């Protein structure tokens, strides 16, 4: 294929892809788990059970849910920044372990030594949970490098936000990813605000799907509030990467309902803006409406799912509240591996 001077901007298909009822139910369940889990985390933070920073994913659930539905679980690697609870839940990490890590207990995924921003699982191929804005772009490119080196056919999915998209190492990574045609999909979760700075105040160009243009990396802008659109685009992007054509960028137009972290003053955006997203674009409500619309799923059935999810979250919260803190001897373990 001839190299174009500029990347072709792939256009999202005009027809909204349809989900089967099973897909809608699966997406509903995953997104609801994230929503309820994060609400509980917010509450526990407010009670002083969770310390430090706590970045909630509420509002952005469709992004990680749709992407993960299109990926191969246990094979494809995922890596993200510090807004990471949702990613772990959807990838199948134990909600009890995630919540206990938030409360800094011994049963946490990192034994209580990582915290909200630092959880990992080799088994599920989840590589964090990274607290330095933009670091995961380079690290995720390295996961793709390893995939190509080993020839294992896996794809690396590296999420970062609109804020990280202005970091220098992102472009160093884009360059190497395309230079070596590494199987990586970059997901730019554009939730409009880098902490409290809107994209208009931070970015010279705000179409982040074009940020790979000078490296000939195709990009798409996707409605990140509609899980069907996310899934559809992710399938294209992952297939592109897996087939050896190199990196792909998906800009997810999404929105976080809560502040950047728990201590966000929320003075930088209007209440109307938040309300509008919640009322008109909510990713979970869209699926709920679709499920009920067909008439095959009843309110009662959805209520059963909600009860089930609530029980999982309550169990996680109880575990995270009652599990003991790590033994003091843990202070001195896991610093280096004894050769």
């Amino acid at each position, binding site marked *: 294929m001839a190299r174009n001077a500029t990347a072709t901007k792939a256009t999202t298909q005009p027809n909204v892809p349809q989900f089967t009822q099973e897909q809608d139910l699966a997406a509903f369940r995953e997104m609801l788990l994230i929503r309820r889990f994060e609400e509980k985390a917010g509450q526990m933070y*407010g009670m002083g059970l969770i310390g430090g920073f706590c970045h909630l994913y509420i509002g952005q659930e469709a992004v990680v849910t749709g992407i993960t539905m299109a990926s191969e679980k246990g094979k494809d690697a995922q890596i993200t920044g510090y807004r990471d609870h949702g990613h772990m839940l959807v990838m199948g990490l134990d909600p009890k372990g995630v919540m206990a890590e938030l409360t800094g207990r011994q049963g946490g995924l990192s034994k209580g030594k990582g915290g909200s921003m*630092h959880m990992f699982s080799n088994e599920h191929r989840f590589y964090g949970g990274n607290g330095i804005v933009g670091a995961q772009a380079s690290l995720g490119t390295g996961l793709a490098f390893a995939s190509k080196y080993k020839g294992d056919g896996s794809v690396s999915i590296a999420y970062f936000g609109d804020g990280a998209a202005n970091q220098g190492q992102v472009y160093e990574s884009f360059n190497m990813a395309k230079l070596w045609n590494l199987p990586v999909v970059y997901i730019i979760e554009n939730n409009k605000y880098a902490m409290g700075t809107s994209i208009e105040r931070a970015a010279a160009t705000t179409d982040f799907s074009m940020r790979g243009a000078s490296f000939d990396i195709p990009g798409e802008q996707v409605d990140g509030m509609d899980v069907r659109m996310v899934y559809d685009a992710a399938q294209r992007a992952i297939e592109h990467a897996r087939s050896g054509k190199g990196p792909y960028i998906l800009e997810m137009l999404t929105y976080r309902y809560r502040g950047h972290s728990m201590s966000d*003053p929320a003075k930088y955006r209007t209440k109307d803006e938040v309300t509008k997203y919640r009322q008109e674009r909510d990713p979970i409500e869209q699926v709920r409406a679709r499920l009920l619309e067909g008439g095959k799923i009843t309110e009662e059935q959805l209520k059963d799912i909600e009860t089930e999810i609530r029980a999982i979250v309550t169990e996680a919260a109880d575990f995270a*509240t009652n599990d003991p803190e790590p033994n003091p001897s843990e202070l001195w373990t896991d610093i280096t591996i004894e050769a």
Partner: protein
Amino acid sequence: MPQILMPALSPTMEEGKLAKWLVKVGDTVKSGDVLAEIETDKATMEVESVDEGVVREILIEEGTEGVKVNAPIAFIQGEGEEVGEGNRPAAQVSTSDPEKESPVVATTHAEPKSSSAEAPKFTAQSDPDLPEGVEMVEMTVRQALNEAMAEELRRDKDVFVMGEEVAQYQGAYKITQNLLEEFGPERIIDTPITEHGFAGLAVGAAFAGLKPIVEFMTWNFAMQAIDQIINSAAKQLYMSGGQVTAPMVFRGPNGAAARVGAQHSQDYSAWYSSVPGLTVIAPYSAADAKGLLKAAIRSPNPVVFLENEILYGSTGLVPKMDDFVLPIGKARIAREGKDVTIVSFSMGMRYATQATEKLVGAGVDVELIDLRTLRPLDIDTVIASVKKTGRLVTVEEGWPQNGIGADISARVMEQAFDYLDAPVLRVTGKDVPMPYAANLEKLALPNVDEVIAAVNAVTYRS
């Protein structure tokens, strides 16, 4: 019946203002509904409902200041729940009795066993005995490093080399010479000039099980990448509770070269050796360069391997063995003596060795220790020597403040104070950015005369 508690906006918040109620008694609420707004002097926050049900009682009026964190502010009756006296919360407002109203958070603390939680003690292994009659081959440090990488590349297909000019150019300092020819472009990889990016890429590859050797053309350029070295590689094992590590080597020339000015002449020994999670090696001799680089490549931990451009061409004897590997973390006693201990590493050893020759000629029985590894530091060898000699001089090219010598001096004071017959003296690079002019550069670096003067001072011979 679920109580709604006054939430904290941050771990340091103790109380705040309940600014506004957005629901009233009798309203039905579901998860995510905004119930109220709270304020501190720094921020405002919406209180969302986590529960579903009907608002039965509002306990704190809007506009109330000084509401304690975790005080109940309302309660919600869930579906099918009875309102009973037993689960009715008592209103806890105002600041009249802070003792009584301090938030009770149900954390379960493990019984502190702090006395048992001591830092593990590092014990270094001794160098392996060389086989009887082993042939010793003279080679440069450059050849030794090159052989170490070639041998490990042959041994383990997960090992690869990445960096600027490492492949087709054969290495900016020819350390990777001929590797491309033997191992091919998939394993000997030229990168763009993007230290931050390729260092991070290599760490990610290490997370996924590969064993990268990242060559920095010099360590000066690695400052672009130091975030990935420390925040991603060094801390990974700990942050993940032991699950994910970064088995890899970052290597390249460190310290001053010759006449290249301030930005290209800096010793990072003290910087990296202060970081838990990293292993830091700084060899002097060709044999140590080879044996320790092979050990570094096999290490399951991230290793910072500090070479020295001026030493690349110096020669030494290296045992000709199929697999010559040295233990990480073991100092080498280069010369045994009883009058004074000189401790150094890397290029500092050149000044220390030359000074030792002159001092021994003048009748001073010097014990010379080459640290070789800076983290974990073989302080036991240093302490044992100081207990014997009672006098210590450290030699390094780095800056004096917070240097390797400063650290050793502190540890000797802590562990062998009563054995010291003189204050510890440090010979270091001068506390200035590296000048370009030949005479000034010479003045900025340590030299043999300074080492001799320091030894004379601690032995009261001056």
